[in-house]
């Protein structure tokens, strides 16, 4: 009902950082002067279980506190969720975008999904393994999200993420550096934009 609010849904498995991705992205959007919400869906919390988290971003204050039913963008952190979880649920085939962590091309992914809307792909797991040394695909997915939607500038995102991660990993600069590289690479490598 409110077109000014941009809504995002993240799919992942417990432990992959879907919640952290929504929080980081929300925080970065706030630092650019936008109003934000970031909230996880709390079900049974188990490592590896399918989980979701959400963002709302707007240039006006956000009053909505209902669940997100028709997201503008859906991100899939774990390709093995496809077939188990209805990742395109509520996504408008005309206007919506699905971003999947996979080495497949956008066309191949579309065929696999049997979905006619816009699909973008990025090998976030490979990027994370290269840059961070671990398969933590959440930060590169934020880079892909920013490229696909243009909702934030990449420089703003990198700057804010650097500040946030430097606080969290004070004594481990290689983690900060790795994450920033991961975001930048995903931004440049996402396919189907």
């Amino acid at each position, binding site marked *: *009902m409110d077109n000014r609010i941009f809504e995002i849904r993240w799919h992942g498995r417990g432990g992959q950082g879907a919640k952290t991705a929504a929080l980081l992205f*929300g925080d970065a959007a706030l630092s650019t002067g936008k109003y*934000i919400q970031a*909230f996880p869906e709390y079900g049974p919390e188990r490592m590896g279980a399918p989980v979701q988290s959400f963002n709302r971003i707007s240039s006006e204050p956000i009053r909505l506190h209902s669940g997100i039913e028709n997201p503008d963008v859906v991100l899939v952190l774990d390709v093995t969720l496809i077939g188990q979880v209805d990742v395109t649920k509520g996504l408008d085939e005309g206007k919506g975008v699905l971003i999947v962590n996979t080495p497949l091309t956008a066309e191949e992914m579309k065929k696999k999904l049997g979905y006619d809307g816009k699909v973008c792909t990025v090998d976030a797991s490979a990027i994370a393994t290269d840059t961070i040394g671990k398969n933590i695909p959440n930060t590169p997915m934020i880079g892909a999200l920013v490229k696909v939607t243009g909702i934030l500038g990449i420089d703003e995102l990198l700057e804010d993420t650097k500040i946030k991660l430097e606080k969290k990993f004070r004594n481990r600069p290689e983690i900060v550096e790795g994450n920033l590289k991961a975001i930048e690479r995903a931004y440049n490598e996402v396919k189907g934009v």
Partner: protein
Amino acid sequence: MKAAKTGNEAFAEAMRQINPDVVAAYPITPATEVVQIFSQFVADGLVKTEFVAVESEHSAMSACIGASAAGARAMTGTSSQGLALMWEMLYIAGGLRLPIVMAVVNRALSSPINIHCDHSDSIGARDSGWIQLFSENVQEAYDNIIQAVRIAEHPDVNLPIMATTDGFILSHCLETLDMLSDEDVRSFVGDIPERSTLVKSLREGKPITLGALDLQDYYFEHKRQSAEGMFNAMKVIPEIGKEFAKTFGREYGFFEAYKLADADAAILVMGSTSGTAKDVVDTMRAEGKKVGLVKLRVYRPFPAQMLAQALSGIKALGIMDRAEGMSAVSGPVYPEICAALYDLPGKKPVVQDYIYGLGGRDVSLNDIRYIFDEVLKSAQTGKKAYTLKYVGVRE
């Protein structure tokens, strides 16, 4: 300063800025983070608070009562079963006129066991002598708990107070929060005003007894005086709200009337759903439908006369109740609104009740729109179609 904070972080940050003398708490989902984050502030030396890690919520409230009776500014936080376990101590805090401030994260009561939001926990504590403030969003939760200190400690009130958030919907939702500076909060809450306390009585060499046996001879007088505190809160709550507005720019009263002035149909609701409902009001207004909203902030004391006044012009009203009253009539807010409207002269609005969102069931824009459509129908006919409907349940 604009910051991204969850409801729980906002409560904890406000508590850090208030810097109470004592916090006694026991963890419970979804309120755990409030006292967990705060305990980190204690460990980091950011506050001078004595943190008492107790073995249950009953003990948490007991410790707050002891601290507050001695003269300290005492705070705690809890949810659901935790609040239920505090039950007998809630009444003792109220009866002893102790201005304890509690962050309550609203969560459904068992059984069946559930960790998500409804208002049954704090509404169940309705008659315990605690002031209750509900919050629409993270900002209001933060603002409410800061004002709560001043309201509770006002010499004419001296009653415990709870500020609430909707569990998970606000407690775990990162939102944009306009945070005040530590100095501003400190200067707004100030020092705890002079009152009759155990420490003071000993210092002055005139020891007092608190919680003594009080039979047919005086119990009634003391209850009457507690009630007087609640009557006085009717004056103090808007005063503190105005002072807060003067200092920080956001004004708070008993309720917010949203596009109500010329409305034919309105919804009355508490907590986070009121924000969602405002968006529905705007959408329906754009379609030419005369709908409005009342967001009830203060549930205790109950602003009956002011609500009746505000609602006197509308034709039909839907109450959204996020608790099951188990009365075989309606949810708990409905009868109080009806009672408030009963004294209006002339034609009164038709009132219908809608129980929704129990155990965290999501309430969508369409659910709220359905309620508005139902209430608009009754506004047109001028007749009550029914007393109660359940919205968003499978039956």
